[in-house]
């Protein structure tokens, strides 16, 4: 809402000396969110004066234009005496043609600076010295009209123009505008009247509402009106004004206020309805009375009806939904949204039917949204228009048409319905202080609410209050608490930290997730966040087999990009994009990870219920709410590419590979006391020979390894890029909740190394597991320290060398004991894996 301050000051007398900035500050404190203050005309300097064209010569130019060489009388003070040319004046070249000799115009004289830093000087053009400029509206920052120069009547707003006088004063260019963002609950502040009321309250000065005029009882003395849906249209007022001069201009003061408010001046009749809407908050519509056919009817749309709206669009109406204004010819307007073309005011319209009505906010909100027709009217109706305003606003508009357009208000008026009754509420006066956390006296509660227009009575500490018709937002006790708070100022609210009964800190899962992230970052992995939307292309590139649950993506009804309509089922596409973004920026050595939810449809889901909001949903309803949601596991994924460590002074580069992907999973697991078991796995999008299936406690939680070369190619990733993705919720859920600290053995360690020859395809983990099992309880640790393939072990075979370390809890192991344990270990490996002790 843009509020010209001169207008505001006409409506409420703020204390003398109050600046616009001070008003804005009070507005902000009262919840009117001030976006900016504009100083209209502050970018114009120097002489811009009223002149009169005393002669003009049309001079065709070679470029096809015809310019006018004018002599303009700009008053004795500004006329150029030196030239000696008579009659006195200045010679000015003008390109516009919408004026005649004798017209009053606005002249920017040399030395003037117009908006945009446009400095005016005497300059030679089209063979003349142009000694100034005749101004169009846009050149003065008065709007975007450049169809011609400004032609002023001899008398502007009751003032007979003087040649040479300051045109900016005449045009009322200099003003200030506060632009405020009005919250949905304060729709009454979408009017100068509402803002003036708030301003008066903020400064403690009284506000006399020019629209405080009771709605008379229903009557059909004017233009006939029938309202078929009183719920959607509780009040409809129609006044008829005849004999309005279609040529009557909009007075400058009105046009300027409209312009400062962000509306264009169109014609007197239209301008009057807009002016009254801005001032009062009551949207209005004017019909050409001679084009109306029969009585006005307010009803819902019937099937198949259409309407040509003022913007010349033929619109299909929603049967049973759209509220229409109709006459015998059918729909003539979409109520509260936009009028129809058939009854539009024309250049010859003299007789006008003014409509001022109150419409149901929900109906209007749905209509303008369905038809994509946001307007100044629908914006106000959606937030709720004062249900007692229509009659006063209609009369104000009619009076302006009488005063400014020479019209005659017909004596009969039509009133259908009446103001809505407002719900009263009772609450303890002490509630305000209790909820605000501030000292608020009972009489202050009463006085604030009365100043806000409420009817208030007080008995035994209980306030009974009825809001004014323009305050539909005041319903509950807490609404009144806020009203009191806003009006006494939130700065009165104290500050104290509430004392909690004591929390239990992070949950085990929350702590575990923090540990995982910290460990990964410490190990050299970089956390990134990516947007969780994917498209068919993203999933196709992963080459997922039919039936893979990652193909069961949840689709958004209104995706931000049609190419990515799904929620991610895997974090990998986002990470691949992040890799490509980094490599495109020459960051080639990458070890990225992300933690985030994925969304797995796993088949059709039941709809979520919409339980009654006035009471707690029962357990079945809560269960149904949850049952409507897809699985949303939190995943941990990583992509590693380039070099893990670059070549340095002390060694060659360490290329990143499948092992780093596995190490990521191991690091995450180790951070929360888990060991990841591995075996060869086959899973898209990994390389079938370089993919580890990862599990904890026998449960598969993910995969890691090098990506499939065709996926790498499709994604445009560097060769040998490795990736890992695990179900972090599952990992964290498997973490031990407590551990045991065993006594430390002080006895000596016995070392036994063994080299075992097995088939080349035997997983080392199997050999190690067999050794562990065979070695028994004396085994303290086992480590693979060498792998050999070659002629000494034969084709298709490999030698695995393990360092076994034995220790007893209670004694020094003898050589025999250690050897026996080693032999037992080798025996199990031989049995399980066909291992042969290398000679």
């Amino acid at each position, binding site marked *: 809402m843009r509020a010209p301050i001169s207008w505001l000051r006409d409506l409420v007398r703020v204390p003398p000396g109050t600046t616009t900035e001070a008003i804005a500050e009070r507005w*902000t404190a*009262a*919840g009117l*969110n001030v976006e900016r203050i504009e100083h209209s005309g502050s970018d114009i300097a120097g002489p811009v004066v009223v002149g009169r064209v005393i002669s003009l010569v049309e001079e065709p130019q070679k470029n096809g234009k015809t310019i006018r060489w004018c002599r303009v009388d700009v008053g004795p003070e500004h006329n150029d005496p030196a030239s000696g040319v008579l009659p006195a004046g200045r010679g000015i070249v003008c390109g516009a043609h919408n004026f005649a000799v004798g017209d009053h115009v606005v002249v920017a004289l040399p030395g003037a600076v117009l908006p945009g830093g446009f400095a005016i000087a005497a300059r030679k053009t089209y063979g003349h010295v142009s000694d100034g400029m005749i101004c169009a509206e846009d050149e003065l920052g008065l709007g975007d009209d450049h169809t011609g120069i400004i032609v002023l009547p001899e008398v502007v707003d009751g003032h007979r123009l003087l040649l040479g006088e300051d045109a900016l004063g005449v045009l009322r260019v200099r003003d200030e505008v506060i632009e405020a963002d009005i919250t949905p609950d304060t729709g009454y502040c979408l009017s100068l009247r509402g803002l003036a009321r708030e301003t008066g309250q903020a400064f403690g000065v009284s506000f006399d509402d020019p629209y405080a005029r009771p709605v008379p009882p229903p009557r059909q003395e004017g233009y006939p009106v029938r309202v078929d849906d009183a719920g959607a249209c509780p009040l409809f007022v129609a006044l008829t004004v005849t004999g309005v001069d279609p040529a009557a201009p909009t007075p400058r003061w009105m046009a300027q206020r409209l312009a400062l408010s962000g509306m264009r001046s169109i014609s007197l009749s239209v301008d009057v309805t807009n002016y009254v809407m801005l001032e009062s908050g009551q949207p209005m519509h004017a019909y050409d009375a001679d084009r109306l056919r029969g009585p006005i009817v307010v009803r819902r749309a019937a099937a198949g009806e259409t309407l040509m709206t003022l913007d010349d669009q033929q619109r299909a109406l929603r049967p049973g939904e759209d509220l229409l204004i109709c006459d015998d010819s059918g729909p003539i307007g979409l109520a509260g949204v936009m009028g129809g073309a058939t009854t539009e005011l024309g250049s010859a319209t003299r007789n006008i039917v003014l409509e001022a009505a109150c419409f149901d906010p929900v109906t209007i*909100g749905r209509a303008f949204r369905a038809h994509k027709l946001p307007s100044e009217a629908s914006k106000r109706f959606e937030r709720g228009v004062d249900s007692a305003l229509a009659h006063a606003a209609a009369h104000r508009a009619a009076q302006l048409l009488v005063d400014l357009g020479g019209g005659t208000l017909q004596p009969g008026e039509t009133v259908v319905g009446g103001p809505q009754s407002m719900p009263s509420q009772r609450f303890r006066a002490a509630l305000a202080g209790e*909820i*605000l*956390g501030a000292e608020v006296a009972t009489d202050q509660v009463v006085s604030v609410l009365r100043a806000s227009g409420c009817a208030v009575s007080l008995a035994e500490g209980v306030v009974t209050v009825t809001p004014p018709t323009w305050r539909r937002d005041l319903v509950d*006790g*807490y609404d009144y608490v*806020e009203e009191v708070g*806003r009006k006494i100022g*939130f*700065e009165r*609210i104290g*500050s*104290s*930290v*509430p004392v*909690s009964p*004591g929390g239990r*800190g992070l949950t085990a899962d*929350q702590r575990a997730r923090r540990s995982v992230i*910290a460990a*990964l*970052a*410490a190990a*050299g992995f970089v*956390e*990134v*966040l990516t*947007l*969780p939307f994917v498209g068919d292309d993203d999933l196709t590139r992963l080459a997922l087999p039919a039936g893979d649950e990652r193909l069961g993506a*949840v689709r*958004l*009804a209104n995706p931000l990009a049609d190419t990515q309509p799904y929620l991610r089922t895997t974090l990998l596409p*986002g*990470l691949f*994009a*992040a*890799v490509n*973004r980094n490599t495109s*920026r020459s*960051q080639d050595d*990458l070890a990225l990870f992300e933690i985030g*939810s994925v969304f797995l449809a796993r088949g059709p889901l039941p*709809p*979520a219920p*919409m339980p009654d*909001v006035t*009471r*707690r*949903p029962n357990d079945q309803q*809560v269960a149904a709410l949850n049952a*409507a*949601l*897809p699985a949303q596991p939190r995943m941990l994924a990583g992509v590693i590419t380039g070099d893990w*460590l670059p070549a*340095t*002074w002390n060694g060659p580069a360490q290329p990143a590979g499948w092992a780093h992907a596995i190490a990521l999973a191991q690091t995450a697991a180790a951070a929360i006391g888990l060991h990841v078991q591995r075996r060869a796995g086959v899973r898209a999008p990994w390389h079938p020979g370089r993919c580890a299936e990862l599990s904890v406690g026998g449960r598969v939680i993910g995969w890691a390894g090098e990506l499939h070369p065709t996926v790498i190619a499709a994604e445009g990733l560097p060769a040998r890029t490795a990736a890992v993705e695990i179900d972090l919720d599952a990992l964290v859920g498997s973490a031990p909740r407590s551990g045991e600290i065993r006594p430390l053995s002080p006895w000596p360690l016995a070392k036994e190394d063994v080299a075992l020859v097995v088939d080349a395809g035997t997983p080392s983990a199997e050999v190690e597991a067999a050794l562990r099992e065979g070695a028994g309880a004396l085994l303290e640790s086992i480590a693979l320290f060498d792998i050999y393939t070659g002629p000494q072990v034969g084709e298709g075979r490999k030698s695995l060398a393990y360092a076994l370390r034995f220790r007893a809890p209670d004694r020094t192991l003898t050589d025999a004991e250690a050897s026996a344990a080693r032999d037992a270990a080798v025996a199990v490996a031989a049995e399980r894996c066909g291992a042969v002790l290398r000679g």
Partner: protein
Amino acid sequence: MSGPNTNYDPVQVSPLDDDHVQAMVDEALAAIAAARTTAELKAVRIAHSGDRSPLALANREIGALPPQARKDAGQRVGRARGLLGGAIAERQEALAAAELDAALIAETVDVTLPVALAPQGAVHPITAMMDMMCDVFLDLGWEIAEGPELEAEWLNFDALNFTPDHPARWLSDTLFVEPTQNHTLMRTHTSPVQARALLARDLPVYVVCPGKVYRADEYDATHLPVFHQLEGLVVDKGISMAHLKGSLDHLARSLFGDGVETRLRPHFFPFTEPSAEIDLKCFVCHGASVGDPDNPCRTCRSEGWIEWGGCGVVNPRVLASAGIDTEIYSGFAFGMGIDRTVMFRNSATDLRDFVEGDVRFSRSLMGDAR
């Protein structure tokens, strides 16, 4: 020597006479002094004090001497050997010390060389800030509540007193899940977690709800369709807006320092009444940049105040939809963008950097929100 030594065999005895021993000692001491390394000294020790050294050989001759002379010779040779042993030890210590010093100098390395066992890892600034904000409330005895990002419409809107026609439910504002008649959506705030907390937890409730939220919003330098929020909720007996202000002041001081100033500005939200926005007095310019175009402030864009989040007293209708007796309990709630907080606290200029995965962004705070 005193007295006659008529029993001596002059030929055999001569090496053990005083002069001769002294000569051996002098020669040995000279050699010790001349040794410049511990290795040379070792050779000297073997030559002059070892088993085959002249003194050792002389010592062996002592037994052959007449008993009378044996004592003198023994003492003489013993003194000589002792003298040499001390000299060698002394020299050894000096040479060893010098050699160690030399070795240490020789072994000097450039300790400023780059050393990295692993690449530079990093925690994303959002994660770091989220943890930091949560920790402030954990320390106050609150807990962290979490919930799903794909949520039931009822929990995201209805339970929070959004009317059926509230604009936030439009497809232009909220990402709905197909089919829309299933009434599921991407949560637009973490408030459904608050609704869940009220349904699941015993009173009183003191929780913060961090997490991702979704809006059908632009993707540009100042808007993200997916961002992160921290919301707080307290429901207890006797809760007022002063407790809200106190909690936010505490958070503000924890993140921005003791001197930070806040204000509550009236606003509107369906789920709170009264509602407010919480503004921070600019912690960089402290408002000095307002109306001073020569000294602009990029943190508050010369507005003096920074809009931080929304807050208010929990609307009793919200409590009622969780079955809470609003005559006994009241509550407050607040919410702010974590991304936005990082943005103005750490001077980030483009929100897109938060979600594009450039490692330089993640590393820019070195894993710490600071």
